[in-house]
Each structure stands twice: as C-alpha cells, then as structure tokens.
C-alpha cells in the first residue's frame, strides 16, 4: 500500500500528505477555493435552458470577428476580462469588497484592513483605463486589423437558427 510505503520511506512527506488530504477534505466540505486545493466542480450543476445568451464580439465596419479565431488563452484574456470589467463597471463598488468585508473587517486593525481592501480591489482609475489596455492587447495579437473596430455586447438566440440580434450595444471603440 502506497501510504504505508510513504510512512516507512519518507516520514516527513507522509505527514505532509496527511495534512494536505485533511485540508483538501475540509475545503471541499466548506466549498472554499484555495489553490492548490482545487475543487473540480466545473459543469457539475444542472444547466437550465436559456432562449438566448449575451455575448461580446469585436465589430468591424463590415462584419464581426469570430471569437473562436482567437486561441483559447487570447479569448480568455480578451472576453473574460471584458465580462469581468463590465461587472465592475456596473457595480457601485468592486464586487470583491463585500466578501473581503465578511471575512476580515472585524478581525483586523482598521489600517491593515484598509490596505487589504486596496490590494484586493480595482480602483476607478484602473476600471477607466481598461478599454485602453484591451485595445493595446487586441492590436498586439491582431496587428493586421486595419479598419475601425468596436467591442460590442449583443444577444444570440440559442434556438435554431442561432442568429445574432441585429442590435448591438457598443462598449468602447478599440483604438490604436
């Protein structure tokens, strides 16, 4: 048995593994994410039917860029980050702050707490400069895009023929 072998051959690792197993079980029980104690519950919950979904696309003068022409990592950096930015923009305060508050506000000195809040949240200046960063990153991976482009939010029907709504809401102009 492996664990017995570990006990006899590398005692320190044996105890470390034991602690790590207990920690993993604890975090799974509490449902707390704590890298490297990964909770592999992606797509585990039932997904209900939706008639349409909101998507972000790059619109050029004559067409749209298919998001899947970006690599997975580029797509994540561009469109996930943009989705997160939208949620930050639409909230009165950073979405992380209520969580920070519930975990630490009453448990540490005010100055230390203020510093923590600052380190974990996005300033309004950061949120305002997001379109400039996004544009910079977009053109660094798509330097061949010559025509004007915009990041738009739109809806796609999830019923056949899966068409895109003709209405787009422009989030920002992608400027060089």
């Amino acid at each position, binding site marked *: 048995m492996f664990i017995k072998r*570990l006990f*006899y051959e590398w005692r320190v690792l044996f105890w470390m593994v034991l602690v790590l197993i207990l920690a993993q079980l604890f975090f799974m029980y509490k449902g707390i994410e*704590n*890298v490297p104690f990964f909770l592999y519950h992606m797509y585990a919950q039932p997904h209900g039917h939706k008639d349409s979904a909101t*998507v972000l696309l790059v619109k050029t003068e004559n067409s*749209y860029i298919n998001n899947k022409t970006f*690599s997975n990592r580029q797509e994540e*950096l561009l469109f996930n980050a943009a*989705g997160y930015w939208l949620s*930050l923009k639409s909230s009165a305060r950073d979405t992380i702050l209520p969580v920070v508050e519930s975990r630490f506000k009453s448990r540490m000195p005010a100055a230390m707490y203020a510093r923590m809040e600052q380190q974990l949240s996005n300033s309004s200046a950061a949120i305002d400069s997001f379109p400039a960063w996004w544009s910079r990153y977009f053109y660094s991976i798509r330097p061949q895009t010559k025509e004007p482009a915009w990041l738009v939010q739109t809806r796609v029907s999830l019923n056949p023929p899966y068409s895109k709504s003709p209405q787009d809401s422009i989030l920002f102009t992608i400027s060089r």
Partner: protein
Amino acid sequence: MTTSHTYYPRSFIARIIFCWLFVILLYFFATGSLLSQMQLPVTIYPGSDNSFWLMHILNVPQFLLRHYLVALLFDIVLTSSCIICIFVPQQRFFTWITVIGVWVLYFCYCTAAGKHYAQIGYLLTPIAFLAVKEAKFSLLWELLRYWVCFLYVSAGLYKLYYGGFADGATMSNIVAQSNADWLPFAHSGWQSSSIRYFIENPGFAQWFYRAATLFDLALIIGFFTKKADKWLLLGLLSFHVGNYFLLHISFVEQSLIFAPLMPWHKWANYFQSIKGND
C-alpha cells in the same frame, strides 16, 4: 525497512516532461499570453480564493503585470530555467525556479483574464522533480498519479452530487451556452452540425455527459492498480478531445496531467535497449 520497488527513471522522465513544458511555454508565447506579452493589464481578479488573496496582498501579480521589464525578465528566467531542466535534469535549483515560475504565471494570467482556470496540468507535474534522488522522486511521482486520479474522481463525484448527471438536458444547455458566440458564425461543417445536433437532442447529449462522468469516476481504478493506466489515459484523452470539439476547451496546459499515467518504465527500457544496440 528494505524495499523491492523499481524506481522511476527520473532523468529520462525529467527531460521529456520539461521538453513538454517548454512546448507549453512556446504555446503561451505564440498566443501572446506570457507575462511580458499581456500589455500591462490594469484590472485584477482575486476572486474568492484565499491563495489568490495572499498573492494580491503581497502585491505579486500587480507588480509583475504592471512592470514590463520585470515581466520580460520573469519570462526569460522561467523559459531559461525550463530549458536548463531539460539539459541538466539532476539538479534542484532550476526546478524550483521553474515550478515557482509556472505557479506565479498562473496567478498572474488568471487575475488578468478575470477567471480562475482549471487547466493545471502544467502546474502539478513539474512538482515531482523537486526530489532529486530516484527513490524520493518515485514516491512523489506516484503521489502525483494519485492526485491526478483524485482530481478526476472528485470531478465525477461533484457531477453526481450537484445533480448534473441525473438531469435530462444539462449537456445540451452547456454546449449551447458555451458556443453562443460561435454559432452565428458556424453554418456548415461537421463540427457545427455535431454541435447543433447536441443542442437539439438533449437526451442524446446527456448520455455524453454521463459517459464523461463515468470516465471521471473510472479514475478510481487508479487507486488500486496501475494495470489499467493505459485505458484510463485513453479515457482521459477522449474526455478532453470531446471537451475540445464540443466546448472549444483546449487542453494544451492540462495535457501534462496525463504524464503520471504513462508507461515510463517501458519507454525507458526501450530507449535503453536502442542505446545499447548503438
């Protein structure tokens, strides 16, 4: 206590794994996602993960992501360390740098992308090489194999526990929602037809979800025997290929998670015999 275990050929495995990791870093480079290529992201996403919080409180991702020259130096050091690990596998110093480097890169990438990703094969596998002696490395390598088995088994259990497995249309809804930005562009081709068929036939699609759950759960066999490893590997590979074609989830970073299930003794013996014949 005396043991009769055959140790894993550490140097042989290290050369291949760090070559593999190097290819992953090249993929990051080609896709503009090394630290210095991210164009100094401005927003951060610590999520609700305490480890991410600690890193952000220590200012690590913010500092690296907002200073181009530091990010460039980081990329150079990480890539060079990885290359050194290929050519000089019997050392610990550069292995530490590589392991710390890929973890820091993971933290920075996730915070810039606004999501914490589960593509972690490239983070886990190099850890085993922190042990230099073959006896200790073999223990870590086996431990890693159990960790991989555990991760997938837990993924299967979560699907049972949260109800995705028993639901009647989860797979078709996942496929529809994951492809929402792609469907208006994909009017023809076998991938488009297959995806549309999955969306429009929830009962059929759900059997794929259940099969995937069973693939996940099958990794429990790995806790009792290594004899089924090649079948488990095949199952894992099919699982990820399926994810790639149906959900567009690439598994380049995750691919290193397959390594502990591979027949390293057999391959080492084979290469040894070729060398002997020369």
